[in-house]
């Protein structure tokens, strides 16, 4: 037995020695880095311009939840330019598969990348004490970041209890104006063309257009049946194509699964709004009329895209990025009259389509600096450089003379470069790196002009029209518009939501709302298709059953929890 007892002792001592060694190593590291960064910070606080010390090459590790499959280790043209200007090289790591899991893993591992972009999962890093407060760093070393955020700075604060800034919101641009109407209800151009450009404003107009066209053309030229309207209900696409439109057609702003009263901030599970029952009743009616694709709730996403690509589907209720793959196939075949236009369809004429309801600056997701970062000052200066006018133009437009030129004070993309950008997007991105670094620091949104009077980003009305096909332009002309957005109610017709958007409010993982939401989602995703596919005379009974199930699953408790979250957000952002 004595023999056996030696083992633990030996093990223990090995572990201790290893621990000691590790401890010493750690000390050496932490001892070295402040001394290394101290001179740099001293000199930089004296002058904001780059000193040679600031450009000392440094490699920082970077973790992002968003995969960039084209990432070229900063060997692209933009990347090289950034390294030249800042001395920083990024060693990037991306989340593959479930990003939330990867983030949780990193947060609990204790080995943190230097720069962390963890979107909605940043709270895991904050809970673990992995990221540092940036308030002072921004104040001292980041004039450009401060300038870009301007009076939105208080939206950067983490919570009412903790006013620290852990993440620079980089996923939304400051002052962003959306030009692209990518939502609403979609109709193929051939439908409106054939019917002489009828007014498409209410669900009835929309239904009639589909009905009339389908009566004239029940099949395509190969004899396959044309499909009136198909929905995309595979997994989370359900939100985009089935449930969110219910809010939209009844004039509510998109706040995720809950609707928030703009005046009282009362939160309702949006399916409980009586108006929405009528929207689903309309879908039920579409199904009974045979205008709704019978497979809507059975098909998988790839089948849906294939259907769109076949050109047989007359109408969609979806977002452009969700069906773009299918539509691109139509474009590639030159079937432009089978591509889609966007119409601000609502239940009745008195309801305004809320697609452009302004949210204000949407802080939240962005870039954080970890506590193990060897040189936070250099890091924030690097991020600050990206947020400078020079940096932002570089990230969006590339390098002057190489990718764009300035003619009479107007910044234009060189034609050959722009053609490659559109037609050879992947290789173009790999070589130039344009678009790789946009989400790494503070930036202005689309539609904001820099001091020279040019747009910071490439997305502007002019650029949009250039990408339209001739058919699309013709349809728009007949509706008296130049871009689809012209058909929709404008931002200034709505009152800005002081909480941004409720779907963007992070829910702490120990909040009961997470589990309640999942349960409610299960019920909704099950019962909504059932209600739509029911016989019209049974619709009311199914709906009553649905509401009863929601009540049983504590929907009102979930509403209260969310109301609290919304109120906290309003307080945090506006006090």
């Amino acid at each position, binding site marked *: 037995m004595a023999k056996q007892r030696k083992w633990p002792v030996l093990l223990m001592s090995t572990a201790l020695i290893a621990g000691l060694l590790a401890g010493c190593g750690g000390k050496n590291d932490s001892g070295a880095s402040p001394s290394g960064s101290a001179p740099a910070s001293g000199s930089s606080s004296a002058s904001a311009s780059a000193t040679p010390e600031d450009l000392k090459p440094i490699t920082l590790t970077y973790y992002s939840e968003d995969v960039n499959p084209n990432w070229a280790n900063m060997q692209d043209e933009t990347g090289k330019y950034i390294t030249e200007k800042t001395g920083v090289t990024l060693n990037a790591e991306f989340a593959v598969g*479930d990003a*939330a*899991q990867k983030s*949780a*893993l990193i*947060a*609990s591992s*204790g080995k943190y990348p230097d720069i962390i972009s963890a979107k909605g999962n940043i709270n*895991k*890093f904050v*809970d*673990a*004490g*992995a990221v540092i407060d940036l308030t002072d760093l921004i104040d001292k070393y980041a004039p450009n970041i401060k300038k870009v955020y301007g009076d939105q700075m208080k939206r950067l604060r983490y919570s009412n209890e903790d006013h620290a800034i852990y993440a620079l919101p980089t996923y939304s641009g400051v002052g962003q104006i959306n030009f692209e109407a990518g939502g609403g209800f979609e109709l193929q151009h051939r439908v409106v063309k054939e019917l002489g450009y009828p007014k498409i404003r209410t669900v009835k107009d929309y239904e009639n257009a589909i009905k009339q066209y389908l009566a004239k053309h029940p099949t395509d030229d190969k004899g*396959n*049946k044309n*499909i009136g309207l198909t929905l995309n*209900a*595979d997994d989370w696409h*359900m939100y985009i194509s089935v449930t969110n439109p219910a809010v939209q057609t009844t004039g509510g702003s998109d706040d995720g699964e809950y609707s928030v009263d703009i005046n009282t901030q009362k939160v309702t599970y949006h399916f409980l709004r009586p108006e929405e029952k009528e929207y689903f009743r309309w879908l039920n009616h579409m199904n009974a009329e045979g205008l709704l*694709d*019978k*497979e809507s*709730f*059975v*098909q*998988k996403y*790839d*089948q849906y895209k294939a*259907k769109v690509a076949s050109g047989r589907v007359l109408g969609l209720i979806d977002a452009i990025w969700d069906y773009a793959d299918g539509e691109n196939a139509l474009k590639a075949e030159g079937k432009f009259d089978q591509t889609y236009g966007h119409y601000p369809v609502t239940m009745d004429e008195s309801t305004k389509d809320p697609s452009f309801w302004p949210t204000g600056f949407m802080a939240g997701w962005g870039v954080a600096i970890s506590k193990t970062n060897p040189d936070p000052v250099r890091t924030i200066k690097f991020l600050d450089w990206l947020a400078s006018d020079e940096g932002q133009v570089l990230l969006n437009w590339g390098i002057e003379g190489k990718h764009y030129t300035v003619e009479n004070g107007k910044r234009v993309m060189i034609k050959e470069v722009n053609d490659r950008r559109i037609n050879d997007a992947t290789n173009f991105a790999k070589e130039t790196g344009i678009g790789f670094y946009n989400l790494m620091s503070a930036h202005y949104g689309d539609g904001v002009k820099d001091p020279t009077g040019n747009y910071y980003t490439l997305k502007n009305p002019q650029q949009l029209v250039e990408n339209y096909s001739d058919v699309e332009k013709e349809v728009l002309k007949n509706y008296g518009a130049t871009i689809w957005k012209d058909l929709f109610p404008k931002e200034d017709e709505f009152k800005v939501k002081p909480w941004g958007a409720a779907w963007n409010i992070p829910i702490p*993982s*120990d909040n009961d709302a*997470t*589990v309640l939401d*999942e*349960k409610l989602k*299960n019920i909704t*995703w*099950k019962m*909504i*298709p*059932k209600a739509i*596919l029911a016989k019209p005379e049974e619709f009311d009974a199914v709906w009553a059953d649905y509401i009863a199930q929601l009540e049983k699953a504590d929907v009102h408790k979930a509403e209260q929890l969310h109301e609290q979250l919304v109120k906290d957000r309003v307080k945090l952002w506006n006090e």
Partner: protein
Amino acid sequence: MQAVPTPHPAASRSVGAKKSNFWKVALRNRYLYMMSLPFVIWAFVFSYYPLWGWLIAFQKWKPGKSIWEQKWVGFDQFKALFQDDLFYQVLRNTVAMSVMGLIASFTVSITFAIMMNELRGMFFKRAVQTISYLPHFVSWAVASSIITRMLSSDNGVVNDLLMWLGLIQQPVQWMGQGHLFWGIVTVSDVWKETGWNAIIYLAAMAGIAPELYEAAKVDGASRLRQIWHITLPGIRSTIIILVILSIGNLINTGFEKQFLLGNNLVRDYSQVLDLYSLQYGIQLSRYSFGTAINIFNSVVSLVLLFTANGIFKRMTKESII
């Protein structure tokens, strides 16, 4: 794992006598022990060492803190699990699909193996075998896509065929009806795995001594009699071992097919335990809850395994432990 039992009988016999005897035996069998050591280590590292992580099922675990700094909550996670109505629904679905799969896959693949065994044309036999086990290598992601398209009501093969035969007037919405889902999963599973599962039976049949068949023929036994009295008893122990192991895995069926074939209309029938733990555990960052489900899984599996083993031991004198 295989190497462990070999020296064990020798050791256990001597334990009864004297303690020094054990060391004597151990010394004598030292090479056997050394040979088994890597497997013992392997089993320890991969199967037993991770078990300490089960502790988090009794905590409210949050990332970033060590396991000792977490909040202990006792059996709260288990309470939450057993109080959830949904849990019983997914348990029902899991067990139903497993049992259906178990019965179908055993009967079909054994029948198939017997038919293959009776085939005489070598070329034909090989061809059939290869074709039949090919679907096994098709991933569920692809297979489910094939299945949904075949069963589609928009130009799906199955509906077209049935309409052409005049059996139905309108295309049937196969994938949209909850009560058909279990059947569809079972049939797809049979299509995918029959050929593969038959291989092991064919191998067992190849081990049956040909003299037995010759003797039976001399006694005037027909083909069917030969199958009944020689082939089936010949592979009996193989079947029993596989049945016991499958019963042990009854609720660990994975979720691929249900996840890929299911949709919102059949949710009540398609959700299985693994999907449930994914949705309500990991995806909501409820790691402790997920672990609790896992523990439940393991306990049930162990109970099932030992029960099945015990029953077969008593009934047929065959068992794996």
